[in-house]
């Protein structure tokens, strides 16, 4: 049997069950990338949200500048941007920091939305508490352990982690995942810095952890085991997407944000179906000597966003991608004694992309009616979250309530997208779950559910398409069934195996990994 036949044998076609075929390591299959592209499913692509986090509290007033307000210059004698240097924004009374030439052009082209005065009631001035509030989408007096992006993904992937999506649900470029990506069932993200380095690191991984522990170690072993399994699950898929994708724009050098966005563009172009990306850039805590530092930061952010946007346009993916910036707080209206600014409150958020309704949202900052030297917010930050989820991902009212816990009025920031392609739509009558444990040794359990009594065939294959074992070939009653695949005393090599179910009009294939 040749490999193409094997693919057919498994029932993998261009549109259906091949979803689960996607993460088979190329190495394991010995397929070259041409064949890989042939068997890659032609799935309708999804929209993508890229969250750019500005760590440290960005000074909004020196980013989007009320340069026609004399009070701005009164309160900031040393650090105000001189009127002659401000980049004025057409049809507004506002301007941009002189480093933001590229972003001004995006604004003029209608691809950039600026939402002014974003914050929340009773704001926290602590970096860490404020960051948690933004990540968890809480009121200032609420403490949540899950994040808004994680809860959104939980709505879209209700069967995770029992069923692993073919591609990572979310990607954090970096070393540790943001709290925003945590859900009720754990970390929803894949975190890495460079796709190839990540793949290399994961090679040769094996191992599992026990799940019988009743002590405080138990949940930690489980967490470590599941995280390691995720890395193993997705490293090849990510590497292949990076290999298949391309960057067509020039990215600025020595710009960590540009480096991250370059990877994001490559992965989207390479066909990864991940919906959320989180990238970060630090250094916004400008207590002292703010002018040179803030200038460098916004030069980087502006150039990085422009390169990324250009890349999306050139790769013809700009119609799918929206970016948004957020930061834990703005800064005090008046400068401090160190040519800088202390922690403040409301600040603008920026959204960019071809789907964005460009323009200025909200009133210009009121520098007179301030509280303890701080701006009063106009918009709750969760209004922007709700808008993005509603307009980009077509989240329903009920989903928004499940994610944000309250109703928030949306702003027309994004051209509404009608519906989500139903990648996670399961068969109404049947379900095949991911085996557990996975990776495994020597045995693992496979669970499937039937709505009605049906004849079921469940078989195990190796990567060459050879049938290893028939686990089920009989009529099973309605309900959930668990069968065990036991390799003990069998001479099976470590590696990838598949299990395929056929029942009625339903077939599905999933991958599992034996480690010895």
């Amino acid at each position, binding site marked *: 049997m040749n490999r193409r036949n094997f693919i057919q044998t498994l029932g993998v076609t261009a549109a259906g069950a091949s979803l689960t075929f996607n993460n088979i390591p190329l190495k394991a299959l010995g397929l070259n990338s041409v064949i890989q592209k042939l068997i890659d499913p032609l799935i309708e692509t999804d929209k993508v949200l890229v969250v750019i986090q500005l760590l440290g509290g960005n000074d909004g007033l020196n980013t989007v500048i009320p340069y026609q307000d004399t009070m701005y210059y009164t309160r900031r004698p040393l650090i105000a941007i001189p009127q002659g240097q401000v980049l004025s924004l057409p049809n507004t009374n506002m301007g941009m920091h002189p480093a933001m030439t590229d972003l001004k052009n995006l604004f003029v082209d209608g691809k950039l939305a600026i939402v002014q005065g974003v914050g929340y009631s009773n704001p926290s001035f*602590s970096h860490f508490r404020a960051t948690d509030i933004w990540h968890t989408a809480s009121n200032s007096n609420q403490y949540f352990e899950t994040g808004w992006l994680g809860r959104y993904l939980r709505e879209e992937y209700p069967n995770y982690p029992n069923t692993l999506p073919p591609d990572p649900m979310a990607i954090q470029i970096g070393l540790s995942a943001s709290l925003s990506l945590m859900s009720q069932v754990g970390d929803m993200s894949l*975190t890495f810095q460079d796709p190839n380095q990540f793949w290399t*690191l*994961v090679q040769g991984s094996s191992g599992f952890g*026990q799940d019988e522990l009743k002590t405080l*170690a138990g949940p930690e072993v489980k967490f470590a085991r599941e995280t390691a399994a995720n890395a193993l699950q997705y490293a090849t898929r990510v590497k292949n997407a990076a290999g298949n994708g391309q960057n067509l724009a020039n990215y600025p050098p020595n710009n960590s944000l540009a480096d991250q966005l370059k990877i994001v563009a490559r992965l989207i172009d390479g066909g990864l179906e991940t919906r959320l990306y989180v990238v970060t850039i630090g250094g916004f805590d400008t207590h002292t000597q703010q002018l040179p530092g803030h200038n460098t930061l916004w030069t980087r952010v502006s150039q990085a966003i422009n390169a990324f946007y250009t890349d999306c346009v050139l790769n013809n993916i700009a119609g799918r991608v929206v970016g948004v910036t957020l930061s834990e707080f703005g800064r005090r209206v008046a400068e*401090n004694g160190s040519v800088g600014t202390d922690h403040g409150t409301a600040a603008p958020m920026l959204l960019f992309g071809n789907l964005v309704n460009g323009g200025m949202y909200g009133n210009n900052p009121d520098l007179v009616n301030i509280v303890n030297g701080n701006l009063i917010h106009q918009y709750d930050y969760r209004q922007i979250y709700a808008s993005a989820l509603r307009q980009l991902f077509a989240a329903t009212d009920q989903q928004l309530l499940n994610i944000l816990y309250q109703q928030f009025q949306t702003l027309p920031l994004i051209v509404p997208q009608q519906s989500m392609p139903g990648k996670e739509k399961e068969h109404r009558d049947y379900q095949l779950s991911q085996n557990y444990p996975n990776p495994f040794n020597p045995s693992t359990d496979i669970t499937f559910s039937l709505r009605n009594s049906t004849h079921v065939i469940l078989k195990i294959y190796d990567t060459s398409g050879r049938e290893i074992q028939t686990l089920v070939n009989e009529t099973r009653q309605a309900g959930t069934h668990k069968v065990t695949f036991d390799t003990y005393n069998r001479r099976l090599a470590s590696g990838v195996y598949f299990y395929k179910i056929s029942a009625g009009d339903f077939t599905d294939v999933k991958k599992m990994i034996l480690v010895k």
Partner: protein
Amino acid sequence: METSVAGLLDPYIPSPTRPWDKRLAAHLLNRTTFGAKVSDINFILAMSPSQAVDYLFQPYAIPDPPGSWVTEAPDFNSPFNSTRMAQLRTWWVRLFYEQPISIREKMCLFWHNHFVSEGITVIIPQYMYIQNALIRQYALGNLKDFAKSITRDPAMLIYLDGRYNVVGNPNENYGRELMELFTLGIGNYTETDIREGSRALTGWILNGLGSILVPSRHDYGNKTILGQTGNFNDEDFVNIIFNQNVCAPFICSKLYKFFVNQKENMADAAPIITALGNIFRSSNYELTPVLKTILKSNLFFSENVVSSIIKSPLDLMMGAIKQMNIYFDPSVINTRINYLITNSSSAGQYILEPPNVQGWVGYRQWLSTLAIPTRNAFSESVITGLQKNGQPTGFQVDALAFAQSFPSPNDASLLVDDMSQHLLRLKPTPRQKLYLLELLLDGTTIQNWNINDPLAASRVRKFLKGLIYLAEFQLT
């Protein structure tokens, strides 16, 4: 089993059901040092648990500084600053490797992650060395005095902008973090307290290798801080803070997370933290009594907390090296230490460069999908002598000698048990035991296992590689 708080904090007395054995001795050492060698475990096992804890607190000589440059006048533009900062880093991590059995350096790392400064902001390596020495001086000493000294510490004056804090226009950076992160915790002060407290801190600037108060920059007016009004200075401010009841439990909560269990949800721990806070406060913020209370307690030695803490990268990497008894020759030791530092940095812990003023959050943030493979790749390289890219590391575990440091190297089953216990403390499940035993035997039978077999070394390495990939190895 005692369940009252008092019972949990009472000293652990070995019993037939809870014997003082290698496993608990390893538990104590791995949490209080950077990894327990087999010989270290045997050494403290000769003492009682209480004596062993006391032993960890014995003073020992402070090593010579990393170079004569530590007394040179600071120069922000010196071309040597970055190489000297690297020297300091190597010097400190080498100390983790070479230290005698002592809790001191582990507590220094704790305080480095509490009174945080980042080398990249401080720039001057002399100042980072001086701060490191200050941390070492107070690591097991009096926290109130420590907090007063760190407030005037040159590196801290740079890092949190205290040197720019001047009468009439205060910079709040240090005042905020002093209360939020260093002493009281968020919610236990107001924004007004920050503004007023910052006024008390005004006027301190750098002065050579130290710092000095410039009267014309200091605010001598009355301030109202945490309900008290007066012409307060920085020491008064610290005294007012330490008179708050929340201060002691705030610190004890961090100690609890560091030594006992990291759970974010501290509800179960709350009465224990309160009790520890009372001990800490009543000893006028001396650290040694409260630390000894924790480490000698039934709680610390209870089964519930064994191997329940997620290792930091330094814990995992230095631990792998020390637990497997890897020897570094003085001629190459700095190279080896730098290899460890590079890997620890890749896994998220670059010593002297915490990510921000909060320090490393740790716990599950140590274990991302990138961090776990990075950690595993290092541990594997310690066993195989090869990095993932195929480059040799120049060192690897002496697998035979390591196996022979256990009592029954010729009994494959016991050897698996002993090495697993040494490296994991958690007993493998029957399924895991089978897996590990198969790796060790590697085709031979349990009857034919012989440590003198020519293949034994490679088989032990295969076993160790399998073992470090178990999720349990991420824990201590």
